[in-house]
C-alpha cells in the first residue's frame, strides 16, 4: 500500500522575465509503507525540491501528490502544517535544533503544537530521547552535544509524534564516517523494527547503500529507480 504517491509531479520556479527553472519535472514515484528509499543525484538535480514537496514544505506547480491517500494540493498553509506535525518527521544535514534549548525541549517541539497535557508531552519526549540512547543528556543544549548526539536529538524529535514517515536530508553531511554509520544504523533499525518509512537524500553512494531502493534524479527528472539487493 503506497504511503507516498506522486503522479507527474512538477515544480517550476518562475524567476520573471521569461526565466523559468524546471526544478522538478513530471516525477511519478510510489513509495510503500515500510520502505527505505535513498534519493540521489548531483546538486541541482531536483532531489531537494522533490523532498520539499514530499515534506509539504513546498507546493508542486502541477501533478498530484498523495500522502497517506490524502491529496495535499489544495491545502492551506495551516493544513499543511498539521500534516507535517502529525505524519512527518524531518532530519536535516545541519540538525536544525533550537539553540539554547535543552535536548528534551527540542524533542518536545512537535508535541508543543498538539494539544497535549504537559506531563504526557514530557513523557513521550523522554521515551524518544531514551530510545536514541541519550538518557542523561536531556538537560544539555545543542552546543554542549557532539554532532552525532545532536543528530540523534533531531531523530528523536522526528520520532516523537509517531510519524509514519521520516524525511532525512543529507543527515550525515556534517558527521565523520564513524558517526555517520552510527546514525545510518539507527535509521535502518527504526525502519526494520518500527516499520517507519524513510526517504533519505544523499549524494554519497555508501550512505545510499544503507537503503533498500535508490531513486536517481537528473535535471529534475527521475532517471532510475531500482531496488537494492542486500548481500
Amino acid at each position: 500500500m503506497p504511503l507516498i504517491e506522486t503522479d507527474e509531479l512538477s515544480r517550476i520556479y518562475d524567476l520573471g522575465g521569461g526565466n523559468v527553472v524546471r526544478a522538478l519535472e513530471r516525477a511519478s514515484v510510489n513509495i510503500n509503507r515500510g520502505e527505505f528509499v535513498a534519493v540521489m543525484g548531483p546538486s541541482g538535480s531536483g532531489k531537494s525540491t522533490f523532498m520539499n514537496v514530499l515534506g509539504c514544505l513546498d507546493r508542486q506547480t502541477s501533478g498530484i501528490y498523495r500522502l497517506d491517500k490524502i491529496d495535499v494540493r489544495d491545502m492551506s498553509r495551516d493544513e499543511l502544517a498539521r500534516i507535517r506535525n502529525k505524519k512527518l518527521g524531518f532530519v536535516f544535514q545541519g540538525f536544525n535544533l533550537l539553540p539554547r534549548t535543552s535536548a528534551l525541549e527540542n524533542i518536545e517541539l512537535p508535541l508543543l503544537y498538539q494539544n497535549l497535557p504537559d506531563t504526557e508531552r514530557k513523557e513521550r519526549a523522554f521515551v524518544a530521547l531514551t530510545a536514541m540512547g541519550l538518557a542523561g543528556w536531556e538537560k544539555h543544549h545543542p552546543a554542549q552535544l557532539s554532532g552525532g548526539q545532536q543528530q540523534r536529538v533531531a531523530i528523536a524529535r522526528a520520532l516523537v509524534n509517531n510519524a509514519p514517515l521520516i524525511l532525512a536530508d543529507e543527515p550525515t553531511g556534517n558527521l565523520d564516517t564513524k558517526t555517520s554509520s552510527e546514525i545510518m544504523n539507527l535509521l535502518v533499525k527504526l525502519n526494520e523494527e518500527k516499520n517507519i518509512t524513510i526517504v533519505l537524500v544523499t549524494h554519497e553512494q555508501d550512505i545510499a547503500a544503507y537503503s533498500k531502493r535508490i531513486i536517481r534524479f537528473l535535471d529534475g527528472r527521475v532517471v532510475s529507480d531500482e531496488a537494492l539487493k542486500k548481500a
Partner: protein
Amino acid sequence: MINLAATFKISLRALRVNKMRSALTMLGIIIGVGAVIAMLAVGTGAGNQITSQMETMGSNLLIVFPGSVTTGGLRMGGGTQSTLTGADAEAIKREIPNVAEAVPLLNGASQIVAGNQNWATAVYGASPGILVVRDWLLTEGRIFTDQEVKNAAKVCVLGQTVVSNLFGEMAPLGQVVRIKKLPFTVIGVLAVKGEDMLGRDQDDVVYIPIATAQRKIFGTGGLPDMIRTIMVKMKRMEDLAPAEKQITELLKQRHRLGTNQELDFNVRNLTQMMNATQQTIQVITLLLGAIASVSMLVGGIGIMNIMLVSVTERTREIGIRMAVGARAWDIRLQFIIEALTLSLIGGLIGIAAGVVTAKIISSFADWPTIVSPFSVIFAFGFSGLIGIFFGFYPAYKASLLNPIDALRYE
C-alpha cells in the same frame, strides 16, 4: 492552539538571551507607565486636597451675597449694596424646607488686644448656628447662646491662630480681649481647620454674637439689622438646587422686587462651585495622563522595533518550528506573547517607578499625591495593549515566512 504556559517560558528565555536589549526596550514602557502613574497621582492628590479644603467651608452650603449698587448708571459690583438683614436669615430658616441652619454674618478686619499682645484678624458677627453651618468643633468652652446674641453680649470665640498669637501657651478661656477698645470675654476656642482653597488661614478668626457686631463693633450705617452675608446649610445635597430657587423667590418677595427688576442679592451654591473645580482638575489630570501615555506609545514603538530585529535574527528558529508543525497563529502568538511579556514586565516595573516618583514629588513639592487603583489598572492594562498592538506586526511578519527559506536562513 499552542500551549500558552510553554510559550511564555520560551518568551522568557528569548528575552533572557538579550538581557541588555530587553532591559532597554522595557525602559520605554517603564518610563511611560511611571509617568502615567506619577501624573495621575499628582492630579488625584491635587483634586483630593482641594476637595478637602473646600469641605472645610462646610458641606451642603448656599451663600447669599448682597447685590450691586447702581448710582447714576454706574454699577458698583457685587456686595456694594447692603440689602440683607438678620430678618432675611431668620425668614430663610423659618420658611424654606430642609434648611439645617441659616446664619447671618457681618464681618470686618479689626485689631484685637490681650494684655500686652495684639493681632489683626477677621472678626465675624454670627449666630450660634455658625458651628453647624461650617461643620466646626470647639476644643474648649462653648459658643454664645441665643440669649447672648439678643443681649449683644460682649463674648467671643477665638480661632487657633488668634489664640496662639495672643496667648501663646496660656489658657485663653475666661480671659478678656479688647476689640475696638471694648472688652470681650473668651468663652470658646475653635478646633484647627487649616487653610481654605485659596490658602487663607481659616483659623485666623474671631466670632462674636451678630447683634454685638451690628451695634457695638461695625455699626450698620442707619440700617439697624444690616448684615453682609447669609450662610445656609441644607440637610442634604439634593436640597441645594431647589433651595437655591426658593431662597431667591423668598428674598425677592421680602425685598419687594418686581419680576423685571434686577436682584439686589445673589445666591451661590458652593457644592456646584466645588463640582466645577473638581471637573476642571479631573480634565487637567486626564490631560496629564494622556500626555504621559504618549511616552508609552513611544515605548511601544521601541518594542516593535526590537521584535522586528528579533524575528529576523530568529528566522531559522521560525523555520524549524514551522517544519515541525507550527501554524501561522502558533508563530504569531509566540512573538505577541514575547512582546506582551516585555511590555507587562516593563509595566510592573513602571508602576513601582511611578509610585516611587509620586512619593518623591510629594515629599519635595509638599503636595499630596495619591496613586489610585484606577491609574495602576489603567497603566498596566494600557501597557499590555501596547505590547499586543506593537507586537502584532512583527509576529504577523514572522508567520508569513516561507518555511524552506526560513530553514536555509543563515
